[in-house]
């Protein structure tokens, strides 16, 4: 049997060698020829009609060298503007409902059944408040952002984005399909990493995996939107505030694309040298989106699933935060020790110890960054605010601004650097695990984890140094 098969393989190899190098092409050419013949017999064209022309006209604008990128930015701007402007009111209503009424009702209930203070603190001030915060902050923007994004996807716009970016990726020595996995990463980096399976060459696939983290995922949009709204939008005249806020979020997303290209170019010229593959990208026809179905499925499949993940992460994180700020070692809580230890480095890169500690707590889920920062700032901030240790209170945008600037000593630089750091830091634990599953390689998993973090430190250090040298802060 073994001799039999060895003989067979040797024969095949000899025949292949005898036929020369174009065997593959000959075989493929036969398939193409048959396909052409069969298709020709089956299809009759009854004259061109309008829709073809509509598609072409639209593509001439959306994928043109001149208008492709402006159109892309305008669409992104539109989506974020609608998200920011539309989420404001429902966010405040949810905040009042969950954080004011719900919180007070639960405390009254706890008092009525004589719950011990440490238990009600852990459950209500820790677990409940963290969860409620995440829902109030995340649900409204996501309920607007995801259906809008899904409508664009259903319409057929995403492959056009990939088409526009393909040229740039090619120049960076990466695979054009990386633009598809990058776009997928805007939803979730773990999904984006899995999506790199469409890339044939292992070299280019690794580049796509390592750089996927520069696509801002669900968990990070809320941080950007909040920072953009209360620090950057607020610095503009009220009429333009939501535009400027949306613009700052888009700017961070664009920086993400630039970093993706730069890092891809760097990797493909150093550790991951090699040929760039060619591929053909199909531009599917524009399809009228089925609006209600899209809204329904994106609410169920994306918004609620992402929110559920955030909630399941926020609940234990809330407990950890409450415990770490209520268990004392010496005269300071655990959180206090950590923040004090991280503070010098944090301030050096234009952030602070609280932000860095929050990023450690939030490794399982970036969604809880903002609540964690706010809560720790209120309990550990320089001035006495009267808040209990580890309690996240209901706050409106203006109050959030007040807490951060007065208690936390934040400046515009802190907000800008937090936005940059939100783009450039280690992937969440789910994504790291996915990278390990896809590569099964410790070295590349470590690179994909630490490279963005190193970049984040470098970039924030640079902006902080520049801002301080020029005397802006």
């Amino acid at each position, binding site marked *: 049997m073994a001799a039999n098969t060895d003989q067979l393989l040797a024969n095949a190899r000899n025949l292949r060698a005898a036929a020369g190098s174009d065997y593959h092409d000959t075989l493929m050419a036969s398939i193409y020829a048959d396909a*052409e013949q069969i298709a020709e017999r089956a299809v009759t064209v009854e004259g061109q009609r309008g829709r073809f022309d509509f598609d072409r006209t639209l593509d001439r604008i959306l994928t043109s060298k001149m208008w492709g990128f402006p159109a892309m930015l305008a669409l992104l701007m539109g989506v974020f503007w609608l998200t920011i402007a539309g989420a404001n009111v429902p966010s405040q209503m949810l905040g009042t409902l969950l954080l004011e009424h719900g919180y007070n009702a639960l405390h009254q209930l706890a008092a009525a059944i004589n719950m011990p203070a440490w238990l009600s603190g852990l459950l209500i001030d820790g677990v409940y408040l963290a969860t409620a915060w995440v829902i109030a902050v995340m649900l409204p923007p996501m309920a607007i952002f995801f259906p809008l994004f899904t409508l664009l996807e259903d319409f057929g716009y995403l492959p056009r984005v990939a088409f526009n970016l393909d040229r740039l990726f090619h120049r960076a020595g990466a695979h054009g399909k990386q633009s598809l996995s990058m776009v997928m990463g805007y939803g979730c980096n773990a999904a984006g990493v899995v999506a790199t399976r469409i890339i044939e060459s292992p070299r280019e696939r690794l580049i796509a995996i390592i750089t996927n983290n520069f696509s801002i995922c669900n968990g990070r949009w809320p941080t950007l939107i909040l920072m953009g709204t209360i620090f950057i939008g607020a610095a503009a005249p009220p009429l333009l505030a939501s535009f400027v806020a949306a613009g700052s979020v888009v700017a961070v997303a664009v920086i993400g694309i630039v970093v993706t290209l730069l890092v891809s170019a760097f990797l493909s010229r150093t550790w991951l040298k090699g040929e760039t593959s060619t591929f053909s990208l199909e531009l599917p026809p524009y399809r009228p989106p089925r609006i209600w179905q899209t809204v329904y499925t994106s609410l169920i499949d994306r918004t609620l699933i992402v929110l559920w993940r955030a909630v399941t992460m926020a609940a234990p994180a809330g407990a950890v935060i409450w415990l770490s700020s209520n268990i004392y070692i010496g005269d300071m809580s655990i959180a206090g020790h950590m923040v004090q230890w991280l503070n010098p480095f944090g301030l050096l890169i234009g952030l602070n110890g609280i932000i860095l500690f929050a990023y450690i707590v939030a490794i399982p889920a970036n969604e809880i960054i903002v609540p964690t920062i706010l809560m720790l700032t209120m309990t550990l901030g320089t001035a006495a605010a009267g808040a209990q240790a580890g309690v996240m209170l209901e706050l409106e945008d203006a109050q959030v601004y007040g807490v951060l600037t007065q208690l936390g000593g934040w400046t515009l630089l802190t907000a800008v650097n937090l936005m940059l750091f939100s783009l450039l830091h280690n992937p969440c634990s789910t994504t790291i695990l996915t990278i390990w599953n896809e590569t099964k390689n410790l070295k590349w998993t470590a690179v994909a984890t630490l490279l963005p973090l190193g970049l984040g430190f470098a970039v924030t250090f640079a902006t902080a140094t520049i801002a301080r040298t020029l005397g802006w802060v």
Partner: protein
Amino acid sequence: MTVQGASAHAAACATCPMYNGAQLTRLGINMTDWDFVVALAGNPNTGKSTVFNALTGLRQHTGNWPGKTVVRAEGGFLYGDKRYKLVDLPGTYSLLSTSADEEVARDFILFGQPSVTIVVVDATRLERNLNLALQVLEITDRVVIALNLMDEAKRHGLRVDERRLARDLGVPVVPMAARQGEGVQDLLKAVAEVASGAAVTRPHRVRQRDPQVEQAINQIAGQVERAFPGLPNARWVALRLLDGDESIEQAVREGTLGQLVQQKSPEPLPAIRLELEAVS
């Protein structure tokens, strides 16, 4: 007028959930003890996931861009009195296994030995889509072609003759507009017939124009048949070996190809000789 009315009525019936409900029970992910395994293959962005959702009642996310499904999804449905397990394969342009997603699709069709493979084909881009369909037909003869996006083809002024296509390909061809739920009943019927062996297929095999290549294929195919008697797709294996396909070379060397012989699919019932044409 009456004829038109009748056909409009029939079309309305086929998309009505009550009509579907009569024979199709969507089992979602509940799929123990299935009778048949059905694979769902096709080019990217042809509506595979939409067909998958229509049959299983699951809500796999669908999107208008190629490369959306890269892992396989599974679901079940009950049709007639048979239970089917449906496997949604990643969308690929070929089965040459140059990337991870192509390998997933090919390995499943080759080693998973599905009772039926549905190839979802975009009617507006028939020629390119047939490249994949022809490659699937080289591996297995138990194929049903779902000629999807017929509504779009109509809008673009294309008329696709599904009977002609079925005759040329030698397998059932079902015209569909899966997004609107049209053609699902016909697809189920065709799948059931191929699965039970009631429909006999005579798949088109790609002709090699170069006599030297044809000779080489025949020679190697003969040797493959001798090494693995009863192998259903010796010719395809020969093609892949001549193309220097490492994973098939490995399957030959390690004898994994031989396993394909043992799990033989049930003999088709010879009694019913079905005229092969589109179920319409």
